[in-house]
């Protein structure tokens, strides 16, 4: 009877695609990803080729924490991949991650790019930069985030929604450096300088500079690379050609940085394989693929930036703790509401 019941359950589980069943072997990893599978596919393929461990990916941007939480010990997820510090921190605070102790990870990833308790690990970093019009913005005219609030840029700035995760993190870093009041005043100033209501994604801001809608776009650095090398949509090369990538605050604290990162869940059934995957992603070969394919900054010291990224010159990144930024995110989000940032200029 017992066996019959078990067999029935196994059959049901197979029919309905349950993945927790019958995968005794540690030869695979279930990965929840904020990153679209096609973007990380070359990396995962390389991992499978080297280790023989298969990676199953589910792409989702919302509900991941709640899903892992609700499933408890039965959660099929072994590891999580995100593109912003906010989600990593929320997962940690939600109590669904487990600490990982790995010499490889500690060696490969500098301390400010990983959680002090080993709950999450940054794998690449990205800079929130200004893409300024080559024609209409002189070199040296814009040098810091603080400048963005200067009235001389009135009607000249384009940016996506203040509620976008990358902007929320940037505003959180402004709170960390200037306090809430200072950051509010700054955000008011930036809002007053907007050329149009916040909209579109980062790439769309560069396009707007190309079209003459505005002179300054706020964007993550790698979009510049993606536009410059886009052979399938050559019009994007024109957008990129119209702008100059400008790192900010080079004279003081450095450009604001965010990370994409990974973590192992508390309920991981394939913990060893999951750790192996993260170690692989932090090591030379994968870091190089990240650098070359996605134009991001490798976190591992010594791995060269891509040629393209190098062509934008040396820069200094802000080493403000990402944990601090994550903690200030709710405050930053409230600030966006308070100043009515997304209502656009003149509201």
């Amino acid at each position, binding site marked *: 009877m017992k066996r019959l019941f078990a067999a029935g359950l196994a059959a049901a589980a197979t029919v309905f695609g349950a993945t927790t069943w019958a995968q005794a072997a540690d030869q695979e990893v279930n990965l929840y990803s904020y990153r679209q599978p096609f973007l990380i596919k070359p990396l995962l393929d390389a991992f499978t080729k080297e280790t023989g461990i298969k990676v199953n990916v*589910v792409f989702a941007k919302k509900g991941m924490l709640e899903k892992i939480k609700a499933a408890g010990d039965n959660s099929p997820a072994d590891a999580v991949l995100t593109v912003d510090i906010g989600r990593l921190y929320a997962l940690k605070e939600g109590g669904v991650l487990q600490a990982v102790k790995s010499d490889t990870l500690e060696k490969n990833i500098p301390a400010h790019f990983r959680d002090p308790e080993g709950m999450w690990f940054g794998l690449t970093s990205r800079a929130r930069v200004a893409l300024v019009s080559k024609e209409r913005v002189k070199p040296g005219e814009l040098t810091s985030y603080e400048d963005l609030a200067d009235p001389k840029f009135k009607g000249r700035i384009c940016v996506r929604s203040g509620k976008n995760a990358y902007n929320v993190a940037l505003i959180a870093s402004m709170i960390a450096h200037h306090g809430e009041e200072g950051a509010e005043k700054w955000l008011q100033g930036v809002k007053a300088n907007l050329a149009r209501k916040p909209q579109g994604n980062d790439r769309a801001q560069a396009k707007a500079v190309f079209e003459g809608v505005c002179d300054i776009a706020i964007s993550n650095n790698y979009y510049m690379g993606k536009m410059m090398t886009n052979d399938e949509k050559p019009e994007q090369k024109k957008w990129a050609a119209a702008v100059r990538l400008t790192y900010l605050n080079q004279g003081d604290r450095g450009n604001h940085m965010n990370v994409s990162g990974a973590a192992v869940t508390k309920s991981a059934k394939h913990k060893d394989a999951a750790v192996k995957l993260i170690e692989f992603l932090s090591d030379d070969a994968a870091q190089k693929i990240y650098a070359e394919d996605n134009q991001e900054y490798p976190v591992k010291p010594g791995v060269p930036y891509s040629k393209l990224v190098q062509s934008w010159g040396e820069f200094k990144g802000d080493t403000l703790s990402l944990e601090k930024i994550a903690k200030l995110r709710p405050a930053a989000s409230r600030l966006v509401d308070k100043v009515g940032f997304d209502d656009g200029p003149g509201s």
Partner: protein
Amino acid sequence: MPHPAVADRPTARYLPARLIPDRWGVLTLSVALFVATPLIAVATIALTPAPEIWRHLYNTVLFGYVERTVMLIGGIGLGTFVIGTGTAWLVTMCRFPGRGLFNWALVLPLAVPTYILAFVFTDQLEYAGAVQGTLREVFGWRDRQDYWFPEIRSMGGAVTVMTLVLYPYVYLLARAAFLEQSVCVLEVSRTLGKTAWQSFWNVALPLARPAIVVGMTLAMMEALNDFGTVDFFGVKTFTAGIYDVWLNMDNISGAAQLASVLMIFVVVLVVMERMARRGQRYHHTSSKIQALPSYRLSGIKAALAAVFCAFPILLGFVLPASVLLSYAVVFFDVTLKANYLTITLNSISLSLGAAVIAVAIGLVLAYGLRMGSGPLPRAAVRFASIGYAVPGAVLAIGVIVPMAGLDNAIDAFSERTFGVSTGLLFSGTVIAILYGYLARFLALSFGTVEAGLGKVSRNMDGAARTLGASPFQTMSRVHFPLLRTSLLTAGLLVFVDCMKELPITIILRPFGYDTLATFVFQYASDELFEESALGALTIVAAGLIPVVILALTTLRSRPGHAGGGHP
């Protein structure tokens, strides 16, 4: 013989009789509660206090959210009413060039996901798009200071895009209602000296009102739950606020509270509408059916009618389909590489399954309300149908929490008793998606079936029962043939909507399981929209087939239309 359910009920003495459901009532109540469980879960999550969120929202953005939400659904309600009812009336009652084509083609935009239309519209109408580019070239304007052009990423843009995709709900239901109306009442009206316009306004429209209202309610509820389009257009609605509180302020209970307020809002709307037509019944008073009269339009009137019908089809279907087609030709290899066949099969089988289940349950509930009433089951069914207005991602959380709880309980039990772990039997499988679809789309199936059932006169039930038929016999031999069109409509509406559904599918799908919608979104969320064009086109095409069947069937269904030919 006393009604058994009444006779066996000892509690009858202690509770007011009207509150005690009979057998049908108990069935209705249980089924409704089953479907409403995700909503109840959301309300439960909302019980954790989050006062600081409310103070913040109240002081900053709350009124803006509410104002924009009201504007959005108001605009969409009006827009879908005008286009849906207007075109339905024209193709049903008038003859003008192109009518045979419009008759079914007017349903086509239903197959286009809102997020896709939003993308195509911005692509064409923004500053760099084809339209403004051509204008600049033709008139020699240099930059945007030289001329004025409406901003597509705005409230107006959101209303336009959603109206174009959602008006077919009103069109389908209104047309079915017009087709089923007895011509006699219209003839009487004309005989009494009313003009065609007055007959439409004073006679046909009030008779079709329940169906039209259901259509408008569906469209407005769909708009309430939308996030993708309003986000894309930078319109901060109530739903945008829910996501913001959840994901940016990391406050799920605050988000659930907002979602609960949204539910209350919808309940109030539905109740208000019900009260407005309380006591009115809309049955056929004459069984005399004859071929529809067709007012022959000519000259300028015929041209205007054709333009009025062609416009929504061109903008809501031809434009997006051709843009998608042109992209699909260039980027088809991306989709083909991604296991195209499997994800298409997944989409179709999942949507088909959901449609069958939703119609079956919608039927049970609509019958439950007709047979055994009682305020409790009635309220439960109304509550279960508001899942349609709840933001999909929030609803998905409402599915996960109770389902994973059940799974874990079963797992623990099986582990204890048999020493076997069952894992996540429901929440880790496609059953979760089906449940999510049911919770979300019950309003479609229930609303449509109920509207259809409402047109079946109670006198028929009475006659059938007098002749000795049981309720079930009445159902299978009298109602079912009369309901066939409504059932089909309900099933196809659910099918098409499931094909397009995104947030629930994305959150609830198991590892290695993709649908066309999730595939398209993976690219579109990175604004690599062109790469996913073939996938998007397949959603539209798969939605087309049932949509055309539906359009043809409702036409044939009318008694007096021999073989579906045009009169």
